[in-house]
């Protein structure tokens, strides 16, 4: 799954560690998500979208 997590995270000046803490996962999970290696659950995708201040999941995650 392709994501724009890195792009939006950098826009907010947020580190991987800060994002990981905000959505209650490990930094390694954020790294895997950003590299498109791991497909998140709907719940985690929602949380990340919210923390990155986006309205729709599709803005952050793309199949």
């Amino acid at each position, binding site marked *: 799954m392709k994501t724009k997590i890195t792009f939006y995270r950098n826009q907010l000046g947020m580190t991987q560690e800060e994002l990981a803490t905000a959505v209650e996962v*490990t930094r*390694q*999970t954020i790294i*895997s998500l950003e590299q498109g290696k*791991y497909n998140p659950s709907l719940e*985690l995708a929602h949380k990340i979208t919210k923390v990155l201040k986006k309205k729709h999941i599709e803005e952050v995650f793309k199949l």
Partner: protein
Amino acid sequence: MIAKPQWFKRRKYFGWGAYPATWQGWLYLAVALVLIAIIQFIPITSQLKIVLTILIALILIVDTAIIMPKLSKDERDKKHEAIAERNALWAILSVLVSGVSYQVASSAVRNDFSNVDWFLVAAIIFGLLVKAMSNLYLDRKD
């Protein structure tokens, strides 16, 4: 429970259980090991030594069993652990089934089943039951 979950980290790559992550965790483990060592040298009967050693080992095992579910795991960790546990189970099952099959086959040839380890047979049957019950529970749950 004597130990606290924040003293430990989940063992990720090898084996099951947890390992100390803070000095309190290391102190807890060291105290347990020193106590076990001291017990071996104090002038008491060997039976009492065994009982006391088993008691401390039990405390360690129970503490680990209580701490493990409390150690933080995110969804990716849980998925990885589930896959690793499944693979480990298949490895264990392969060895168990091969061993029991060999025991039953060789016993059948001699017509003497006293060499079959019925605990191993029970372990396989119990595993099958737990799997069936888990599937049933999970199907009804979601």
